[in-house]
């Protein structure tokens, strides 16, 4: 298939349709509105349903209902809107419904800004809503990866009956790059024996629910979900290691920031500083083993986490490195994007502190 030039948000929408998603429930919010707009145009032409809900809260609950009825379904929003969806996301995780949730992050807290940010990492990876649960969180860094991870995201959601989040940012949502859509028809949806489709007595009566009034039953339910999470941790970690062989400093960054760091790696090389990059593609499950592996190498002297936040993923990097090597942090917040020169200055500082 030839490459087409597409905006990130539109690429996500088209990828979802090609993956067999026929139901979209959403609400306008910058910088992700191209997703609902694209869906509004395209879904009715392929026999699907686009519905602009009255609120983010309603939209995520429509996703709950549609997923419970057995559909491949998604919603998208940006930071403040994702906050509103958190109640519903917790219920979806508790009821074990597969669906895709896209967060094209903007600056916060509060109404914040409409510029790109990565300050929803905690919310995405540590829960966000109430209770013991996790989303699978996928972090694309190119428009092509937005296509690929959107399609994989639906498959992962189905495989584990768990909500999956695409965590992008305003930069990725708004920029254009050439993308290729995979050939071939979307695979059929796996059977959904648990869905509420009308009970004719040929299977147990299906109830989509997250209420377990007996605490022992709830604990059993949560433990079962957590055993599922162990499977996800064992089978779904995705990470890119770039230029790590021979690196003395390893940067950690995801999404837009990882692209800036790749430029910085080339700039540093010109000064004789060997820098590598670990780019988590799954933010949850976090590629802790990869960090542990490189932290154990004698050639690696220090880590530097770079984020468009005041420091969120750095906590997972530090936990993984576990004191074996120093972990520094550089971040910009509020919708400001790190300048390569400023990151390079941090790297020079770290290099200066390494005994030669």
């Amino acid at each position: 298939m030839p490459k087409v030039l597409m905006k990130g948000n539109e690429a996500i929408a088209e990828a979802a349709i090609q993956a067999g998603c026929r139901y979209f429930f959403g609400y306008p919010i910058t910088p992700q509105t191209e997703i609902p707009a694209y869906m509004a145009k395209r879904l009715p032409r392929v026999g699907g349903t686009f519905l602009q809900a009255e609120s983010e809260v309603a939209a995520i609950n429509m996703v709950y209902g549609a997923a419970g009825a057995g559909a491949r379904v998604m919603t998208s929003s940006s930071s403040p809107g994702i906050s509103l969806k958190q109640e519903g996301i917790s219920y979806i995780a508790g009821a074990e419904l597969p669906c895709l949730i896209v967060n094209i992050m903007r600056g916060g807290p509060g109404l914040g800004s409409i510029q790109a940010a990565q300050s929803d990492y905690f919310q995405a990876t540590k829960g966000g809503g109430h209770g013991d649960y996790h989303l699978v969180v996928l972090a694309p860094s190119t428009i092509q990866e937005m296509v690929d991870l959107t399609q994989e995201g639906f498959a992962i959601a189905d495989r584990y009956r768990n909500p999956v989040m695409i965590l992008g940012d305003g930069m990725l949502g708004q920029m254009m790059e050439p993308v290729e859509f995979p050939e071939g028809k979307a695979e059929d949806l796996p059977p959904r024996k648990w869905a509420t489709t009308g009970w004719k007595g040929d299977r147990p009566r299906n109830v989509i629910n997250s209420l377990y009034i007996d605490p022992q039953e709830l604990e059993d339910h949560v433990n079962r979900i957590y055993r599922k999470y162990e499977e996800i941790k064992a089978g779904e970690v995705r990470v890119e290691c770039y230029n790590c062989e021979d690196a003395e400093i390893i940067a950690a960054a995801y999404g837009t920031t990882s692209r800036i760091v790749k430029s910085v790696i080339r700039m540093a090389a010109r000064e004789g500083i060997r820098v590598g990059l670990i780019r988590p593609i799954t933010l949850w499950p976090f590629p802790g083993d990869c960090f542990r592996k490189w932290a154990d190498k004698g050639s690696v002297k220090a880590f530097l986490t770079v984020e468009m936040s005041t420091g969120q993923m750095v906590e997972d990097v530090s936990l993984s490195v576990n004191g074996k090597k120093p972990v520094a942090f550089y971040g910009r917040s509020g919708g400001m994007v790190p300048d390569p020169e400023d990151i390079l200055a941090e790297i020079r500082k770290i290099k200066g502190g390494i005994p030669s």
Partner: protein
Amino acid sequence: MTKVFQRPASLTGKAFHYCPGCTHGIVHRLVAEVMDELNIREDTIGVAPVGCAVFAYDYFNCDMQEASHGRAPAVATGIKRVLPDKVVFTYQGDGDLASIGTGEIIHAANRGEKLTTIFINNAIYGMTGGQMAPTSLPGQVTDTSPYGRKVEESGYPIRMSELLAALEGVAYVERVSVHDVRHINQAKKAIRKAFEYQIAGRGFSMVEVLSTCPTNWGKTPVESLEWLKDNMIPCYPLGVKKEVG
């Protein structure tokens, strides 16, 4: 021997957890009888609320989804858009529908979603132990209006049926009561009509059922029925509020 009365097939048979004298059980039965009579049990998906009827999914003998507080109309919208040929209903109380879920009910109704809502109005929050609802009457003493509901502070009883009747997407809305046999029979007719409107694809339909809460009203079951008749009906006039015909 001929059986002249039995449990509707649309009820599971699990014993209701409702308090003595509570009218939820009557309304559950009416909904189930209508599902039996219209022969729709196998094609129906119900949505349970948060509130006293939270376990409705244990009682209605069809596929069910449990919604978060107030969001049943949004959940039902998602189901119906995926399964337009199925019958989808929500069963919601007044805290659920008239307070935290006002946005969801108004917009589902306004979109003309082909759903049926059974709305239980007992003028109080039951499950949490008797707090003021938007439907509580002026002067009504509750946990959170211990000196009686003051309208200048907490507003007025909200008449959801009249409010929804003003929306173009609504095909049928009627307020009924279950305080005596005559009214119970009338309530059943209304519930049946509401489902028929949905099946005919005419738009959104709702039946508001004035109900009792003896436990949290601090009254006996019989006193509660009297109190409903004497106090609630004057505030919430019975009858059809909208019918597209």
